[in-house]
Protein backbone atom coordinates (compact mmCIF):
# COMPACT_ATOMS: atom_id res chain seq x y z
CA UNK A 1 0.00 0.00 0.00
CA UNK A 2 1.27 3.43 -0.87
CA UNK A 3 0.06 6.54 0.86
CA UNK A 4 0.68 10.08 -0.21
CA UNK A 5 3.16 11.58 2.15
CA UNK A 6 2.67 15.02 3.54
CA UNK A 7 4.67 17.65 1.69
CA UNK A 8 8.19 18.15 2.94
CA UNK A 9 10.64 20.81 2.16
CA UNK A 10 12.41 20.08 -1.08
CA UNK A 11 16.15 20.40 -1.35
CA UNK A 12 15.97 23.86 -2.79
CA UNK A 13 12.37 24.93 -3.27
CA UNK A 14 11.05 27.17 -0.53
CA UNK A 15 7.87 26.21 1.28
CA UNK A 16 7.74 29.34 3.37
CA UNK A 17 8.28 32.92 2.40
CA UNK A 18 11.94 33.71 2.73
CA UNK A 19 13.20 37.22 3.45
CA UNK A 20 13.51 39.35 0.37
CA UNK A 21 17.07 39.59 -0.75
CA UNK A 22 16.51 43.23 -1.62
CA UNK A 23 15.79 43.87 2.08
CA UNK A 24 19.18 42.63 3.17
CA UNK A 25 21.34 45.57 4.17
CA UNK A 26 24.42 44.12 2.50
CA UNK A 27 22.79 43.71 -0.84
CA UNK A 28 24.06 46.27 -3.25
CA UNK A 29 22.21 47.66 -6.22
CA UNK A 30 24.58 45.75 -8.47
CA UNK A 31 23.80 42.49 -6.68
CA UNK A 32 20.09 43.17 -7.07
CA UNK A 33 20.46 43.86 -10.77
CA UNK A 34 22.45 40.68 -11.24
CA UNK A 35 19.91 38.68 -9.30
CA UNK A 36 17.07 40.11 -11.36
CA UNK A 37 18.91 39.32 -14.58
CA UNK A 38 19.46 35.74 -13.43
CA UNK A 39 15.82 35.44 -12.44
CA UNK A 40 14.73 36.73 -15.84
CA UNK A 41 17.08 34.34 -17.63
CA UNK A 42 16.48 31.21 -15.56
CA UNK A 43 12.94 31.43 -14.22
CA UNK A 44 10.79 33.48 -16.56
CA UNK A 45 11.20 31.26 -19.64
CA UNK A 46 9.31 28.53 -17.76
CA UNK A 47 6.17 30.60 -17.27
CA UNK A 48 4.14 28.65 -19.85
CA UNK A 49 5.25 25.35 -18.32
CA UNK A 50 4.41 26.45 -14.79
CA UNK A 51 1.04 27.72 -15.98
CA UNK A 52 0.21 24.38 -17.62
CA UNK A 53 1.23 22.53 -14.48
CA UNK A 54 -0.81 24.87 -12.28
CA UNK A 55 -3.80 24.43 -14.56
CA UNK A 56 -3.45 20.66 -14.37
CA UNK A 57 -3.47 20.92 -10.59
CA UNK A 58 -6.31 23.41 -10.18
CA UNK A 59 -8.40 22.65 -13.27
CA UNK A 60 -9.55 26.24 -13.09
CA UNK A 61 -7.99 29.09 -15.06
CA UNK A 62 -8.51 31.75 -12.40
CA UNK A 63 -7.09 29.50 -9.68
CA UNK A 64 -4.17 28.61 -11.94
CA UNK A 65 -3.44 32.31 -12.47
CA UNK A 66 -3.32 32.84 -8.71
CA UNK A 67 -1.08 29.81 -8.15
CA UNK A 68 1.34 30.90 -10.89
CA UNK A 69 1.43 34.46 -9.58
CA UNK A 70 2.21 33.27 -6.07
CA UNK A 71 4.74 30.74 -7.38
CA UNK A 72 6.75 33.37 -9.22
CA UNK A 73 6.59 35.96 -6.47
CA UNK A 74 7.72 33.35 -3.97
CA UNK A 75 10.46 32.23 -6.35
CA UNK A 76 11.63 35.82 -6.76
CA UNK A 77 11.71 36.45 -3.03
CA UNK A 78 13.59 33.20 -2.49
CA UNK A 79 15.85 33.38 -5.50
CA UNK A 80 18.91 33.24 -3.25
CA UNK A 81 17.97 29.63 -2.43
CA UNK A 82 18.06 28.54 -6.06
CA UNK A 83 21.28 26.73 -6.83
CA UNK A 84 22.74 27.91 -10.14
CA UNK A 85 23.15 25.12 -12.65
CA UNK A 86 20.32 23.03 -11.25
CA UNK A 87 16.97 22.45 -12.93
CA UNK A 88 15.02 25.68 -12.51
CA UNK A 89 11.84 24.28 -14.02
CA UNK A 90 11.84 21.46 -11.47
CA UNK A 91 12.43 24.03 -8.70
CA UNK A 92 9.52 26.16 -9.91
CA UNK A 93 7.22 23.14 -10.24
CA UNK A 94 8.01 22.17 -6.66
CA UNK A 95 7.13 25.65 -5.45
CA UNK A 96 4.00 25.58 -7.60
CA UNK A 97 2.82 22.31 -6.09
CA UNK A 98 3.53 23.62 -2.58
CA UNK A 99 1.53 26.76 -3.32
CA UNK A 100 -1.31 24.65 -4.66
CA UNK A 101 -1.33 22.35 -1.65
CA UNK A 102 -1.27 25.30 0.68
CA UNK A 103 -4.15 26.93 -1.20
CA UNK A 104 -6.15 23.76 -0.70
CA UNK A 105 -5.09 23.60 2.93
CA UNK A 106 -3.09 20.58 2.01
CA UNK A 107 -6.03 18.41 1.25
CA UNK A 108 -4.44 15.03 0.92
CA UNK A 109 -5.76 12.10 -0.96
CA UNK A 110 -4.93 8.60 0.13
CA UNK A 111 -4.63 6.07 -2.61
CA UNK A 112 -4.01 2.38 -2.57
CA UNK A 113 -1.94 1.23 -5.47
CA UNK A 114 -0.33 -1.96 -6.57
CA UNK A 115 3.05 -1.79 -8.20
CA UNK A 116 1.68 -0.70 -11.55
CA UNK A 117 1.76 -4.14 -13.14
CA UNK A 118 -1.98 -4.65 -12.87
CA UNK A 119 -2.54 -1.36 -14.66
CA UNK A 120 -0.11 -2.32 -17.40
CA UNK A 121 -1.98 -5.59 -17.88
CA UNK A 122 -5.35 -3.85 -17.89
CA UNK A 123 -4.08 -1.46 -20.56
CA UNK A 124 -3.05 -4.51 -22.56
CA UNK A 125 -6.62 -5.78 -22.30
CA UNK A 126 -8.00 -2.51 -23.65
CA UNK A 127 -5.62 -2.78 -26.58
CA UNK A 128 -6.47 -6.44 -27.17
CA UNK A 129 -10.19 -5.60 -27.35
CA UNK A 130 -9.45 -2.79 -29.80
CA UNK A 131 -7.29 -5.07 -31.91
CA UNK A 132 -9.96 -7.75 -31.99
CA UNK A 133 -12.34 -5.16 -33.38
CA UNK A 134 -9.82 -3.85 -35.87
CA UNK A 135 -9.57 -0.42 -34.26
CA UNK A 136 -6.16 -0.64 -32.68
CA UNK A 137 -4.88 2.20 -34.88
CA UNK A 138 -7.40 4.66 -33.47
CA UNK A 139 -4.73 6.82 -31.77
CA UNK A 140 -2.82 7.04 -35.04
CA UNK A 141 -5.88 7.82 -37.18
CA UNK A 142 -7.60 10.44 -35.03
CA UNK A 143 -6.51 13.61 -33.31
CA UNK A 144 -7.13 12.51 -29.75
CA UNK A 145 -5.58 15.65 -28.23
CA UNK A 146 -8.79 17.43 -27.14
CA UNK A 147 -10.36 14.25 -25.76
CA UNK A 148 -7.13 13.35 -24.03
CA UNK A 149 -6.86 16.77 -22.40
CA UNK A 150 -10.43 16.48 -21.09
CA UNK A 151 -9.74 12.97 -19.85
CA UNK A 152 -6.60 14.13 -18.02
CA UNK A 153 -8.63 16.88 -16.36
CA UNK A 154 -11.04 14.25 -15.06
CA UNK A 155 -8.32 12.15 -13.42
CA UNK A 156 -7.96 12.30 -9.65
CA UNK A 157 -5.13 14.58 -8.51
CA UNK A 158 -2.34 12.07 -7.85
CA UNK A 159 -2.75 10.45 -11.27
CA UNK A 160 -3.33 13.75 -13.08
CA UNK A 161 -0.13 15.18 -11.65
CA UNK A 162 1.94 12.13 -12.57
CA UNK A 163 0.65 12.07 -16.15
CA UNK A 164 1.02 15.84 -16.45
CA UNK A 165 4.61 15.89 -15.27
CA UNK A 166 5.94 12.81 -17.06
CA UNK A 167 3.83 12.49 -20.20
CA UNK A 168 2.94 16.11 -20.95
CA UNK A 169 5.89 17.99 -19.45
CA UNK A 170 8.39 15.27 -20.32
CA UNK A 171 9.91 15.13 -16.86
CA UNK A 172 11.99 12.19 -15.71
CA UNK A 173 10.57 9.93 -13.00
CA UNK A 174 13.23 11.36 -10.70
CA UNK A 175 12.24 14.98 -11.29
CA UNK A 176 8.54 14.15 -11.00
CA UNK A 177 9.21 12.34 -7.71
CA UNK A 178 10.95 15.44 -6.40
CA UNK A 179 8.10 17.72 -7.44
CA UNK A 180 5.45 15.33 -6.08
CA UNK A 181 7.47 14.63 -2.96
CA UNK A 182 7.06 10.87 -3.26
CA UNK A 183 9.38 7.94 -4.06
CA UNK A 184 10.07 7.14 -7.72
CA UNK A 185 8.11 3.89 -7.42
CA UNK A 186 5.03 5.87 -6.43
CA UNK A 187 5.42 8.08 -9.49
CA UNK A 188 5.50 4.93 -11.62
CA UNK A 189 2.40 3.48 -9.96
CA UNK A 190 0.42 6.68 -10.30
CA UNK A 191 1.59 7.20 -13.87
CA UNK A 192 0.59 3.70 -14.92
CA UNK A 193 -2.79 3.99 -13.21
CA UNK A 194 -3.34 7.35 -14.89
CA UNK A 195 -2.42 6.01 -18.33
CA UNK A 196 -4.65 3.01 -17.90
CA UNK A 197 -7.62 5.14 -16.82
CA UNK A 198 -7.03 7.51 -19.74
CA UNK A 199 -6.93 4.69 -22.27
CA UNK A 200 -10.09 3.18 -20.86
CA UNK A 201 -11.75 6.57 -21.02
CA UNK A 202 -10.68 7.13 -24.62
CA UNK A 203 -11.95 3.67 -25.55
CA UNK A 204 -15.30 4.43 -23.91
CA UNK A 205 -15.53 7.76 -25.72
CA UNK A 206 -14.70 6.13 -29.03
CA UNK A 207 -17.48 3.61 -28.45
CA UNK A 208 -19.86 6.34 -27.37
CA UNK A 209 -19.27 8.25 -30.58
CA UNK A 210 -19.64 5.12 -32.65
CA UNK A 211 -16.00 5.04 -33.67
CA UNK A 212 -15.43 1.58 -32.25
CA UNK A 213 -17.59 -1.19 -30.82
CA UNK A 214 -17.98 -1.05 -27.05
CA UNK A 215 -14.84 -2.28 -25.30
CA UNK A 216 -15.52 -5.17 -23.02
CA UNK A 217 -13.55 -5.85 -19.92
CA UNK A 218 -12.68 -2.29 -18.98
CA UNK A 219 -11.94 -2.15 -15.32
CA UNK A 220 -11.36 0.56 -12.80
Amino acid at each position, binding site marked *: MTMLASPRTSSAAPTVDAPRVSDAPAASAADGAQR*DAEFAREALPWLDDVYRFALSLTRDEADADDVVQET*YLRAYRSWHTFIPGTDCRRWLFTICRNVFLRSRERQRATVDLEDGEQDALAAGSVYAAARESGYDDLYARLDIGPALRDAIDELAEPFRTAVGLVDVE*DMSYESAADVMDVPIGTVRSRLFRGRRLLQEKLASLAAEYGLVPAVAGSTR
Partner: protein
Amino acid sequence: MTAPQQNQLEALGLSATCADVVRHLWDYLDDQLTPDGAERLRAHMTACPKCRGYSDYQSCFLEAAAKLRAQLDAPESLRTKLAEGLKSEGCSCWDAVKKGKT
Protein backbone atom coordinates in the same frame (compact mmCIF):
# COMPACT_ATOMS: atom_id res chain seq x y z
CA MET B 1 2.73 -12.78 -10.99
CA THR B 2 -0.61 -13.54 -9.38
CA ALA B 3 -2.99 -16.20 -10.72
CA PRO B 4 -5.55 -13.64 -11.96
CA GLN B 5 -2.80 -11.80 -13.79
CA GLN B 6 -1.62 -15.05 -15.38
CA ASN B 7 -5.19 -15.83 -16.43
CA GLN B 8 -5.48 -12.36 -17.90
CA LEU B 9 -2.42 -12.94 -20.06
CA GLU B 10 -3.59 -16.35 -21.18
CA ALA B 11 -6.93 -14.83 -22.14
CA LEU B 12 -5.01 -12.45 -24.37
CA GLY B 13 -3.24 -15.38 -26.01
CA LEU B 14 0.20 -14.09 -25.10
CA SER B 15 3.44 -15.99 -24.73
CA ALA B 16 5.65 -15.48 -21.73
CA THR B 17 7.79 -12.98 -23.62
CA CYS B 18 4.74 -11.22 -25.01
CA ALA B 19 3.60 -11.03 -21.40
CA ASP B 20 6.84 -9.31 -20.48
CA VAL B 21 6.18 -6.75 -23.19
CA VAL B 22 2.69 -6.03 -21.83
CA ARG B 23 4.02 -5.77 -18.29
CA HIS B 24 7.07 -3.66 -19.08
CA LEU B 25 6.35 -1.75 -22.29
CA TRP B 26 5.69 1.48 -20.41
CA ASP B 27 8.94 0.99 -18.48
CA TYR B 28 10.67 0.42 -21.82
CA LEU B 29 9.16 3.49 -23.48
CA ASP B 30 9.97 5.57 -20.40
CA ASP B 31 13.58 4.38 -20.57
CA GLN B 32 13.37 2.79 -17.15
CA LEU B 33 14.63 -0.70 -18.02
CA THR B 34 18.16 -1.96 -17.68
CA PRO B 35 20.05 -2.13 -20.99
CA ASP B 36 19.69 -5.93 -20.99
CA GLY B 37 15.98 -5.79 -20.27
CA ALA B 38 15.44 -3.16 -22.95
CA GLU B 39 17.38 -5.19 -25.48
CA ARG B 40 15.34 -8.30 -24.68
CA LEU B 41 12.08 -6.47 -25.26
CA ARG B 42 13.40 -4.76 -28.37
CA ALA B 43 14.57 -8.07 -29.85
CA HIS B 44 11.22 -9.69 -29.16
CA MET B 45 9.23 -6.82 -30.63
CA THR B 46 11.33 -6.91 -33.78
CA ALA B 47 10.21 -10.49 -34.33
CA CYS B 48 6.65 -10.28 -32.98
CA PRO B 49 4.10 -8.27 -35.01
CA LYS B 50 1.56 -8.44 -32.19
CA CYS B 51 3.89 -6.80 -29.71
CA ARG B 52 5.12 -4.34 -32.31
CA GLY B 53 1.52 -3.31 -32.84
CA TYR B 54 1.05 -2.85 -29.12
CA SER B 55 4.22 -0.79 -28.92
CA ASP B 56 3.03 1.42 -31.80
CA TYR B 57 -0.33 1.84 -30.08
CA GLN B 58 1.23 2.92 -26.79
CA SER B 59 3.76 5.15 -28.55
CA CYS B 60 0.93 6.97 -30.36
CA PHE B 61 -0.82 7.52 -27.04
CA LEU B 62 2.32 8.96 -25.42
CA GLU B 63 3.03 11.15 -28.46
CA ALA B 64 -0.50 12.57 -28.23
CA ALA B 65 0.06 13.37 -24.55
CA ALA B 66 3.42 15.03 -25.30
CA LYS B 67 1.81 17.19 -27.99
CA LEU B 68 -0.48 18.73 -25.38
CA ARG B 69 2.56 20.57 -24.06
CA ALA B 70 2.73 22.80 -27.11
CA GLN B 71 -0.97 23.59 -27.08
CA LEU B 72 -1.35 25.68 -23.96
CA ASP B 73 0.55 28.83 -23.00
CA ALA B 74 0.13 31.26 -20.15
CA PRO B 75 -2.52 33.86 -21.08
CA GLU B 76 -1.55 37.48 -21.63
CA SER B 77 -3.71 38.55 -18.68
CA LEU B 78 -1.57 36.40 -16.38
CA ARG B 79 1.65 37.81 -17.83
CA THR B 80 0.41 41.34 -17.25
CA LYS B 81 -0.66 40.54 -13.70
CA LEU B 82 2.63 38.82 -12.91
CA ALA B 83 4.62 41.72 -14.39
CA GLU B 84 2.78 44.08 -12.05
CA GLY B 85 3.41 41.77 -9.11
CA LEU B 86 7.14 41.55 -9.79
CA LYS B 87 7.35 45.30 -10.31
CA SER B 88 5.80 45.88 -6.91
CA GLU B 89 8.42 43.50 -5.46
CA GLY B 90 11.14 45.72 -6.88
CA CYS B 91 12.15 43.32 -9.62
CA SER B 92 13.83 45.23 -12.43
CA CYS B 93 13.09 42.49 -14.95
CA TRP B 94 9.33 42.71 -14.60
CA ASP B 95 8.92 43.86 -18.18
CA ALA B 96 10.54 40.66 -19.45
CA VAL B 97 7.50 38.67 -18.36
CA LYS B 98 5.60 39.95 -21.35
CA LYS B 99 5.30 37.47 -24.14
CA GLY B 100 8.21 37.27 -26.50
CA LYS B 101 10.63 38.88 -24.12
CA THR B 102 11.44 35.77 -22.13
